[in-house]
């Protein structure tokens, strides 16, 4: 190669983010040097974002089957069968980089994208949830990022008419330059409604493009999401993608209508890498070929090049396959909703994707080369070892001196204060199915045909991840599973969004593997498989990696929405118990607030968690004669004192008996009140049902010897009172908690 040619070659590798080894593989696969558009196609489909090349070897090991699973990885979203003809599609996805660049549009298009993954399958979206991690108040732009992200999620979800029923918000300096915006959508298939897949089929069937016109939005977005941020990212940013929830609403209604009329063979949304990934994946999965004429793609700007058309990430577009005889009827439906539907190609028998542009074939290539043959990397990692442990639970020092003062500061701190400022910007009840909204610890919708309850909840507590990645992974499933169980819901399945830093760094990859092992083991013990998800690597900005954050979304089922325990004390004189399975004691959130290193004692045991979750669920479930438990809340961040304060928020306080608490926990101290014992649940028995509750617990505890149900006090009064340790007036609690987010 001449110097000039060599430089040009280097520049190409850089532009298309393909390394030398990959270039060699591509040349071998193609039988020739990549030419013209082939560079762009491999760049997009072999990007980390589209190919999962650093994670696939580990994702394959995840527990992903149960008798309920209908679809799992490989399709747009996972689908579980609830019986009685009802099925649920759900998935969580990240939109971290775009939300950092343009918070409103980044978050909005994140919601739009995840919704399309759901209704592409034929499910009507019925709920949204958002998992957000922000930096510190003092970080540059952070206030406006928080504001923009929240507005963006609300702006899209509210308009498209899908309620946001739960969420989680975290703050930590590791997100200062790299926020996380993960959105989850849940869709419902009613009786007799078909699940649609993306496998193209049937020689001579038409490839149809529907929805918005293609513009230069987000060209090269997929490969950009696959590299770390540096200072000039702003300069090389693609055109910001603009979401139009109004258009999406039209797309939802029209797509569901053509599906109901049986006019669709296969369908796929155009997400990352736009038309390229949708068409190549549809062909590859269906084992067929496609011939597409790029001149027929509706364009917003007629001067676009084929490469731009193929890689555009314009929002609100779908690709579908239909029988030619049904096209007219299909087009009529889209027209009625004011949308375009145009034929841009045909299905071929031969396994090739042929792209035509200005009467020339610009590419003819086996789709499997792009979709199936991407290299899979076994990135170096080291096996998990327990870290940051102390010798006993009383060695976990929280740094709290004065319980009242600390509780007050926690309730005002952004990490412990009310999230009302966020969720009041979200419509939580459109759809008229919402039973419990963001104000409660679990989001609940009622399934209209069967009247059963579907619980939706998010997980992953970054401070646990910072302490120990395996425990953090277990907790990312266990904690939300217990939250579901404490309302009487059986956890059914899990979706995950693996937000990590640079996988080429061994410490990051080690955390990735350890947390995945923890998650998978817990899922297996719960019989709640991981059936969909997304990996977001390279959350690294200027050398700083985010906290490894495998966020999760769980769904759970309850036979009725009657008498679901609430999350606050609601009437005086009820017996308060601690329902517990102690495995770990940690300072967690409290230590971080006090700027101490996080330490802990013990180890989480997935098999015990599975059994404990089942036990909790039975106690919280509806039964003849009424639910035994009136209120439940998991003791989480900031320990028991904070949990009791939160439970007193509606105006009913509590008095804790120090001797009983000591009998239950072995220690009553300022330190211990703010430690977290994984896992504990504060529950109240319905009046007159204490005996029944205790008897039931003894009966079903079975072999779970380390589980306990211990009375610790009674509800009532206008204070949270633990004699000699804590004495806090409800009005102060309410006022501090109201302080809210600083945005």
């Amino acid at each position, binding site marked *: 190669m001449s110097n000039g040619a060599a430089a040009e070659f280097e520049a190409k590798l850089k532009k298309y983010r393909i390394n030398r080894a990959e270039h060699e593989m591509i040349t071998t696969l193609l039988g020739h040097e990549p030419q013209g558009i082939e560079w762009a196609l491999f760049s997009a489909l072999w990007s980390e974002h589209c190919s999962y090349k650093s994670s696939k070897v580990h994702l394959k090991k995840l527990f992903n089957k149960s008798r309920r699973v209908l679809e799992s990885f490989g399709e747009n979203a996972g689908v579980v069968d609830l019986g009685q003809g009802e099925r649920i599609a759900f998935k969580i996805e990240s939109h971290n980089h775009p939300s950092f660049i343009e918070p409103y549009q980044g978050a909005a298009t994140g919601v739009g994208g995840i919704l399309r993954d759901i209704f592409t399958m034929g499910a009507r979206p019925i709920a949204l949830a958002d998992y957000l991690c922000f930096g510190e108040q003092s970080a540059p732009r952070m206030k406006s990022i928080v504001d923009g992200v929240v507005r963006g999620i609300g702006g899209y979800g509210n308009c498209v008419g899908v309620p946001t029923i739960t969420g989680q918000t975290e703050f930590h300096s590791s997100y200062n330059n790299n926020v996380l915006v993960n959105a989850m959508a849940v869709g419902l298939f009613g009786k007799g409604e078909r699940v649609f897949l993306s496998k193209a089929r049937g020689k001579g069937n038409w490839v149809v493009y529907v929805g918005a016109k293609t513009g*230069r939005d987000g060209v090269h977005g997929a490969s950009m999401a696959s590299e770390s941020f540096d200072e000039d990212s702003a300069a090389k940013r693609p055109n910001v993608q*603009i979401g139009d929830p109004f258009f999406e609403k039209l797309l939802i209604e029209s797509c569901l209508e053509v599906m109901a009329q049986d006019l669709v063979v296969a369908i796929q949304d155009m997400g990352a890498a736009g038309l390229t990934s949708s068409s190549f994946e549809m062909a590859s999965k269906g084992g067929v070929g496609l011939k597409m004429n790029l001149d027929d793609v509706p364009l917003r700007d007629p001067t676009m090049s084929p490469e731009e058309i193929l890689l555009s990430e314009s929002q609100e577009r779908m690709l579908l396959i239909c029988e030619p005889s049904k096209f007219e009827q299909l087009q009529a439906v889209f027209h009625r909703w004011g949308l375009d539907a145009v034929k841009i190609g045909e299905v071929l028998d031969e396994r090739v994707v042929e792209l035509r542009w200005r009467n020339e074939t610009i590419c003819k290539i086996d789709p499997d080369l792009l979709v199936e043959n991407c290299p899979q990397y076994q990135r170096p990692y080291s096996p998990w070892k327990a870290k940051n442990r102390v010798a006993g639970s009383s060695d976990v020092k929280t740094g709290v001196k004065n319980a009242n003062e600390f509780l007050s500061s926690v309730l005002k701190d952004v990490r412990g204060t009310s999230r009302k400022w966020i969720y009041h910007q979200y419509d939580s009840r459109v759809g008229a199915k919402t039973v419990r909204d963001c104000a409660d610890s679990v989001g609940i919708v009622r399934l209209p045909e069967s009247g059963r309850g579907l619980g939706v909840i998010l997980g992953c507590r970054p401070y646990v991840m910072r302490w120990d990645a395996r425990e953090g992974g277990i907790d990312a499933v266990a904690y939300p599973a217990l939250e579901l169980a404490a309302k009487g819901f059986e956890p059914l399945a899990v979706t995950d969004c693996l937000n990590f830093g640079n996988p080429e760094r061994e410490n990051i990859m080690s955390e990735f593997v350890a947390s995945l092992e923890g998650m998978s083991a817990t899922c297996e013990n719960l019989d709640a498989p991981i059936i969909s998800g997304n990996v977001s690597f390279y959350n690294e900005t200027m050398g700083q990696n985010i906290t490894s954050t495998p966020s999760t979304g769980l769904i759970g089922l309850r036979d009725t929405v009657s008498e679901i325990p609430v999350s606050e004390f609601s009437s005086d004189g009820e017996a308060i118990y601690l329902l517990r399975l102690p495995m770990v004691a940690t300072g967690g959130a409290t230590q971080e607030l006090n700027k101490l290193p996080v330490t802990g004692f013990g180890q989480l045991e997935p098999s015990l968690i599975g059994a404990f979750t089942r036990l909790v669920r039975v106690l919280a479930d509806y039964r003849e004669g009424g639910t035994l438990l009136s209120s439940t809340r998991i003791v989480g961040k900031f320990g028991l004192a904070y949990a009791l304060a939160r439970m007193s928020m509606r105006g009913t306080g509590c008095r804790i008996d120090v001797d009983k608490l000591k009998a239950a926990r072995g220690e009553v101290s300022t330190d211990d009140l703010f430690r977290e014992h994984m896992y504990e649940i504060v529950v109240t028995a319905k009046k007159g049902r204490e005996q029944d509750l205790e008897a039931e617990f003894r009966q079903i505890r079975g072999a779970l010897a380390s589980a306990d149900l211990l009375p610790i006090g009674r509800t009532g009064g206008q204070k949270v009172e633990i004699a000699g340790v804590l004495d806090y007036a409800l009005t102060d609690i309410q006022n501090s908690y109201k302080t809210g987010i600083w945005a």
Partner: protein
Amino acid sequence: MKIGVKVMPRKEILDTQGRAVEGILKQHGQKLEHCTVGKYIILDIPETDPKAALAAAKSMAETVLYNPLIETFELEQI
């Protein structure tokens, strides 16, 4: 002195509002090729020198009135 700030969506960026309004106007049989919807902000600035007022307006536009990722702006003296 009053300065008008016209903030419009950038040309290559999708103008969702314009698209919807255009659709409706066309449905109503209006003769229209294209429609773009933006913002108009009138700033009343305590300056008598047009140059100084325009400079102040520019600085305000850049601090909060427009988002350079998706919009462009123009100033005019009114």
